């Protein structure tokens, strides 16, 4: 375990001092600021039974699709390109510890970025004052649910990024691969039911399975404030599976 923590601390330190991390963080926050501003305007233009927070989380897939490839594409691909992965494998650290340290450092950074969006409603309330009650901007159930979903789903999405990074030496290829997998994974379930074909009866037969893996379905529940144990198992088990496969790939290719 000592080796693991050494590796983890190193990875976190490298992320915190890398300019690329700050570029990614600034881009992420600017995008999320725009998204929040957009939904704030929407909430001001017409009455709705949803709070801004619920809408805000609906856009979770946009930063996921570009942030996660950015955060993770370098992790293993770069080590392999530079030949440092082989060096790492000669140390007492195991392949699993290496993969886990890279996974957790990226995950912590991802969660940290999302945590930076928590002040949004407070900034709005601070500026506007009592005319816009905080309860309309910061609904506890919606916020707890929304951020819980981000935290749980983030496990799998980061694991996908690490997995993609382990497949190739080229960062760009790893990033594109990660983007494609995430795009299909997040949007496939939702898009499957909107396929422009004449008869979708065959899809209805597999409706339960599509629903079970549909991220938007989970987000819909969580962002409304309904917590469900199933996504926890889905994302948790798939994360473990992907990290296991990544470990095998690292072992075999090092």
């Amino acid at each position, binding site marked *: 375990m000592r080796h693991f923590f050494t590796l983890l601390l190193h990875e976190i330190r490298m992320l915190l001092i890398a300019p690329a991390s700050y570029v990614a963080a600034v881009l992420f926050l600017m995008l999320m600021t725009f998204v929040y501003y957009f939904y704030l305007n929407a909430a001001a233009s017409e009455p709705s039974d949803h709070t801004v927070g619920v809408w805000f989380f609906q856009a979770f897939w946009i930063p996921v699709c570009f942030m996660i490839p950015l955060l993770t594409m370098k992790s293993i691909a770069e080590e392999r390109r530079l030949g440092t992965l082989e060096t790492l494998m000669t140390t007492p650290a195991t392949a699993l510890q290496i993969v886990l340290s890279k996974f957790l450092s990226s995950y912590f950074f991802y969660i940290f970025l999302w945590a930076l969006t928590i002040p949004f409603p407070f900034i709005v309330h601070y500026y506007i004052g009592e005319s816009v009650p905080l309860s309309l901007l910061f609904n506890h159930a919606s916020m707890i649910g929304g951020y819980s979903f981000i935290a749980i789903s983030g496990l799998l999405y980061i694991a996908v990024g690490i997995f993609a990074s382990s497949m190739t030496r080229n960062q760009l290829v790893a990033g594109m691969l990660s983007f494609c997998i995430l795009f299909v994974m997040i949007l496939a379930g939702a898009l499957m039911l909107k396929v422009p074909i004449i008869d979708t009866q065959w899809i209805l037969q597999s409706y339960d399975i599509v629903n079970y893996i549909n991220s938007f379905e989970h987000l819909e529940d969580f962002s409304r404030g309904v917590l469900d144990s199933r996504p926890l198992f889905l994302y948790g088990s798939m994360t473990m*599976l992907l990290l296991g496969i990544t470990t095998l790939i690292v072992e075999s290719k090092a």
Partner: protein
Amino acid sequence: MSALDDFRIARWVKRLNRTIQILLSLTLAIALNLIAAKHFMREDITRNHRYSLAPETLAYLQQIEEPIRIIVTEPTNANSPELAEIFADIQNLLREFQYASRVNGKQMLRVDYINIYKDSLATEELVRKYNVKPAEEAQIVVVVTSGDEYTEVYLTDMYRDTAVDEKVFTGEQAITTAVLDVMRPDKTMLYFTTGHSEMNLEDVGERRGLSQMATFLRKRNYRAKELDLTQVAEAPEDASVIIVAAPQLGFLPEEQEILRQYLDKGDGRLIVLLDPAIPHGLDDLFYDWGVLADDMIVLEASDNFVASGGDMLVAKFAEHPTTDYILKNQLKGKFGLSRPVRIDPGSPLDDRLQAVELVGSSAMSWGERNYRNESSKYDQASDLAGPVSLAVVSERVTGSDLGLDLQGGKLAVFGNSTWLGNSKFNIGANPILFNNVLNWMLERDEMVNIPPQVIERHQLLISQDEAFQIYLRLLTLPGGVALVGMLILMLRRR
């Protein structure tokens, strides 16, 4: 050298080993998710448990024996935000219905969303089998089916406007009713007595009409029939509850005897609504059941208990299964001019009889005996001091030597009838109290209520200029992160 030491074979063995590991992990992940999909927990953490189903619905859904299918057509007008919201409300609700309808891990309720332009087979089924014609502008159609039984739920049943910007979603009630309708084709039978100028279910009149109640009963899967006690020797066998709704003429002794026999021997259930100043002829029956309906009127002196139109507001409820929800939510009922109905202090002692004074007026009210002389002052000698009981529910518990308690008959007497008339039926606690009394009588206490959900719609009061200013302030966050990044970059260069 063994064959396994051969480089090529060792590589193949390693590959095989990895493939097996991946396959086993995949199997484990699938198995874990299959178990998780069947045994899961859902927790609604919203303040008012907005997305949780009512205990009544949950109890009904757990009783599903035959699979139920709900077909919902998707709105075809993409430019209608209102339709999209209605569809979202229905989807959210039906999702909870699906989750709650698992009996022993088996999904008993299935929901199919169909697009009438894409799902030709399902649309054809709707038209042919369920006699529903989803036209382009018909928007959302909800059909609940089970076996050969089916019923359509109309959008008008799912929403009720209470104010300009406030809608009440009654979808849970409407769909539960439909589920019950297809689940239990044998409906509960209520008999309404006739022959004494009673209130009528088909009457749409404001004060004495019961058409609102008729709609309520139909939605709750009850059937109603009229009963002329002069034409029968005994109460019908299929009578679940007999309701005497404000007779204007007294019951004959023979009629009273039929009701007494029904209550005593048949474990009957009787609801009596009385009007003040009108003799009803049921005094002996009431006496047996420990109920006294005085020939008085209740006068209310507290402004807090009088509605703007002069009607009496009832806010005093006894603790009883029928009033749990009302007490919890501090609801008020609206009654008209009432007569006192209280526990008879002179009725014979009977351990098996349990009577509860259910509803009361304020402490400042009193029962005026001398009302015919237009007196409206409390007279200590003749009048009844407040608070005055306006309703009594009485039940007889039959004990046995084995120590088992078996339910006997049940009687509910109200000193007012207009609270169930068309003008007041849908006001405040009135429909809830009536529903709860019915459920209590039918021993469906766990299925007492489905409260409607108020859909709160908000609009933020932010001008465009303010929004832009907010945007600039929100940008301080990425600005701050950029600043930290630059500082670190500078430190690293040094």
